[in-house]
């Protein structure tokens, strides 16, 4: 059974408080790759010191402009959605409008006769008793392909599905109380049609216990008992999920909007029962994934390939916004009923929590709790609650934003109980400081820059309806990776190609590839041609868990150092020096202590001859590391007459080991902050409480911040270059929501214990205090 601290479906770092990846110090410790593969093969030996990231750096750590910027701002960059093939058809999926229904019959005949229709298929066959029940609104039933997109949509609506609507589990509370219809197997994922399976809609997790709870509460001077919760949100990748599939005989080429080209290739092979070597997956550019595009066997991709096979023509099948909300993943909810004890001098001595959450129709909803802070005596029992909605998928730092909100609000309430400054209270309960656990330092540094000394106690005493407040929260994440391979070629004309079977989600991976290579060769980044996003390149890992940078950078470093060594060997005789005495710097290869003895990069490459220098590299430990720490401060204004919150300032301090590509790394922090602000204030998947259908499956009532909602954001990247490369995509999106919620609390003097912080909730909480 999975620990509740490990959200399903995502390789998951343990927060340091739970002991994972702690105190490893600088880079050499074997990184605990979160990119999969853990425990399958013994880790490779540590990298030879010649591969280490030895300063000075030519391009690493500098502000290099995103290489594909010009392609993206001009519209030249081709996303999966943009792939147009000669004779291409458009696919469309028929989905269940009901949260739970038996597919009694499916009549494709009208669709088959509709204008332009070239293929139809049945995804849920009424005759297959194990598969003929739709388990959520948006579950796939059938599909069509037609010559225009409009006609495909027309035809899909002509597919006649006879549903027997079945009782569904809609509300978590009812599932917990046992008043919902029994739909799910008590032991775990949905087994809707399996006779004789005990059903309860709730999977009872193990109890985790450390220390002596009773003794801990005895030591406490005060106890706090509260319930905290966070809601379900969806990924809303601006480019929807989908694929363009084209067959050439038995060979499939698929352009897919995916975070893992290689896993997707394997998914096609398994789903279509063809050899993986027959499948090529291409993802040159993709419009955001946030964890929802790691699925190797996404139904829409398999459906697309099958439609294309049937029609003998390329098919594009991109989901629309409603389908995205319903069927391509979400961040599960989280809730915790907590009893916690604290001494008068601010030591938390005991923590006892019942927790639960829903990841939809059969998926887990784990999250780390308590988050980061050290509590010697603690107990936690977790339940996964199943309801009839689309299944959760990893979403940017899975589990952490939930655990962070619940823990940090609790921390602040405790700090007030013992009348301590929230920062001092946090520091008192943190694990000891270490290179991957720098919160105390960052809290002090950030407090100074943010002006924390101007923070008033809980409740802004200012007159008038506008109240100001400050909040703070901390984060951690793994960010190690181990699944990188790269191939480098240097041609006699001086050009360098780096091939790596990774993909760029928008994080800047393409740029990072070039920065690492340029740094080794001492030449401008613009001289490097990175080739990624294609399964013909050396297999690398999927981009999830912030593992990409730490997974591929070492591979590229090793490949480029190998290539440079080969080049040095070629030119050393001509220079009459030992190859080992040469360095590549400022566009030259020269003797380290005698710059005049050397040649330019171009001259050096002329010695290569007709056969390019080729070298390979695979990830080895010692160049990357795992576990980051960070702190964020937020300032808000709250209008207590309307409940409207305006975030005015955020300060983010974040480390990620060796900063490879500074500009794009900073962008990740901005993006994380804004994503978390959305989680705090705006986003909410709202289901009708009676029918279980989503009422806001769009971008109008599913609220996302626009330009006017964005605060001033200051990003401080903390360099820890000695630790090697660590990913940064996820940690910055963890703490903002908690920091904003606590700033609101500091402003209005009352605690909102659930997200999102809607005007309704804020006004209601204020009214309760008055009453």
């Amino acid at each position, binding site marked *: 059974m999975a620990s509740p601290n490990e959200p399903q479906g995502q390789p998951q770092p343990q927060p340091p408080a739970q002991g994972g990846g702690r105190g490893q110090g600088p880079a050499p410790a074997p990184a605990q790759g979160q990119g999969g593969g853990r425990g399958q093969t013994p880790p490779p030996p540590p990298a030879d010191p010649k591969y280490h990231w030895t300063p000075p750096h030519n391009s690493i750590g500098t502000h290099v402009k995103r290489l594909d910027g010009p392609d993206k*701002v001009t519209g030249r960059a081709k996303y999966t959605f943009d792939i147009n093939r000669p004779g291409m058809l458009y696919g469309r999926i028929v989905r269940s409008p009901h949260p739970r229904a038996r597919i009694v019959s499916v009549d494709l005949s009208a669709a088959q006769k509709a204008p332009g229709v070239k293929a139809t298929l049945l995804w849920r066959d009424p005759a297959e008793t194990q598969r003929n029940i739709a388990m959520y609104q948006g579950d796939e039933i059938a599909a069509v392909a037609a010559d225009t997109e409009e006609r495909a949509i027309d035809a899909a609506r002509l597919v006649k599905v006879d549903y027997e609507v079945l009782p569904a589990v809609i509300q978590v509370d009812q599932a917990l109380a046992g008043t919902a219809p029994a739909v799910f197997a008590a032991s775990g994922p949905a087994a809707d049609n399996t006779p004789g399976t005990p059903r309860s809609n709730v999977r009872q997790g193990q109890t985790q216990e450390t220390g002596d709870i009773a003794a801990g509460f005895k030591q406490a001077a005060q106890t706090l008992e509260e319930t905290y919760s966070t809601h379900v949100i969806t990924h809303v990748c601006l*480019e929807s999920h989908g694929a363009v599939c084209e067959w050439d005989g038995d060979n499939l080429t698929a352009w897919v909007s995916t975070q893992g080209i290689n896993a997707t290739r394997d998914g096609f092979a398994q789903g279509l029962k063809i050899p993986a070597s027959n499948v*090529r997956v291409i993802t040159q550019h993709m419009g955001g994934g946030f964890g929802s595009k790691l699925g190797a066997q996404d139904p829409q991709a398999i459906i697309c390939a099958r439609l294309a096979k049937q029609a003998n023509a390329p098919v594009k099948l991109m989901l629309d916004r409603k389908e995205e909300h319903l069927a391509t993943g979400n961040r599960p909810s989280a809730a915790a009923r907590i009893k916690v004890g604290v001494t008068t001098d601010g030591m938390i001595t005991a923590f006892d929590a019942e927790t639960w959450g829903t990841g939809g129709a059969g998926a887990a909803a784990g999250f780390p709790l308590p988050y980061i802070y050290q509590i010697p005596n603690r107990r936690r029992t977790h339940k996964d609650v199943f309801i009839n909605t689309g299944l959760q998928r990893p979403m940017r730092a899975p589990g952490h934003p939930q655990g962070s909100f619940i823990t940090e609000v609790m921390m602040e309430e405790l700090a007030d109980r013992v009348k301590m400054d929230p920062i001092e209270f946090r520091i008192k309960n943190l694990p000891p400081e270490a290179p991957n656990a720098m919160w105390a330092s960052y809290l002090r540094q950030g407090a100074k820059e943010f002006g924390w000394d101007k923070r008033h106690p809980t409740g802004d005493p200012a007159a008038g309806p506008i109240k100001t407040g400050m909040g703070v929260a901390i984060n951690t994440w793994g960010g190690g990776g181990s699944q990188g391979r790269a191939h480098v070629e240097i041609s006699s004309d001086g050009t360098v190609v780096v091939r790596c079977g990774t993909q760029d989600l928008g994080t800047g991976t393409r740029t990072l590839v070039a920065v690492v290579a340029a740094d080794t060769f001492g030449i401008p980044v613009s001289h490097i041609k990175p080739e990624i996003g294609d399964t013909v390149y050396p297999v690398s890992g999927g981009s999830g868990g912030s593992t990409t940078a730490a997974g591929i950078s070492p591979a590229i470093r090793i490949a480029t150092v190998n290539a440079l060594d080969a080049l040095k060997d070629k030119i050393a005789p001509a220079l009459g020096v030992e190859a080992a005495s040469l360095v590549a710097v400022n566009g030259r290869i020269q003797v380290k202590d005698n710059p005049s003895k050397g040649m330019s990069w171009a001259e050096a490459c002329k010695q290569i001859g007709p056969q390019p220098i080729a070298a390979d590299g695979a990830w080895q430990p010692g160049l990357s590391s795992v576990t980051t720490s960070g702190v964020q401060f937020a300032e808000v204004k709250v209008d207590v007459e309307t409940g409207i919150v305006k975030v005015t300032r955020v300060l983010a301090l974040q480390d990620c080991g060796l900063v490879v590509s500074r500009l794009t790394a900073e962008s990740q922090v*901005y993006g994380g902050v804004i994503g978390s602000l959305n989680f705090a204030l705006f986003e909410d998947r709202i289901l009708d409480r009676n029918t279980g259908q989503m009422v806001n499956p769009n971008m109008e009532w599913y609220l996302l911040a626009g330009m006017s909602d964005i605060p001033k954001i200051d990003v401080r990247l903390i360099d820890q270059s000695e630790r090697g490369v660590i990913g940064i995509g996820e940690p910055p999106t963890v703490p903002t929501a908690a920091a904003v919620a606590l700033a609101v609390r500091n402003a209005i003097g009352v605690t909102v214990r659930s997200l999102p912080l809607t005007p309704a909730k804020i006004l209601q909480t204020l009214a309760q205090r008055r009453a």
Partner: protein
Amino acid sequence: MASKDDKPGGFAFSRRDFLKSAGVVSAVTAATSPAESEAQTGGVNAVGPGDVPVRLTVNGKRVDLMIEPRTTLLDALRNRADLTGNKRGCDRGACGACTMIVDGRAVYACSTLAIDVQGKQIRNVDGLATPAGLHPVQQAFCDKDALMCGFCTPGFVMASVALLEKHPSATPEQIRKGLDGNICRCGTFSRIFEAVSSVKGVTRG
């Protein structure tokens, strides 16, 4: 960066091949589909619901299409003319990825019928850069890293161009309000704001 579509695997094909297959007509020779009778429409000609000739002026060039009246400007350009620069994000006029400039004003191309904008000057992101280089707005987005996945970027770029052509020295307030019709899910707003604030020399449109 070159597209990899024509790398190993032999998928070279020309844009013309696609356009041929997508029903683009080079000249308006195809007959209009049977339309409703004039009696039904009170003496005013109705066209459709089948394919009808639609002539657009996109980035200064004539584009003749045979499309249904229900085809949006966005889909007409993306699916029929292979002008895929502007994106479809929400398809309901909320995300702004489809933003194009029609007769000088930013509009949601997903919420505009192609047949409705015949005779108007349509600009999308595919036509913004010139052989001489990027538009100052595009350059500023690159310089400030005002993009991540880039899917919203064409819409933001076009909204920014329209804004600056209206207010060449836009105030921070005008920039914020002027870009409130676009959503970036990656969260690049801070840098988009910085980029647009830094642009000089866009002339009033």
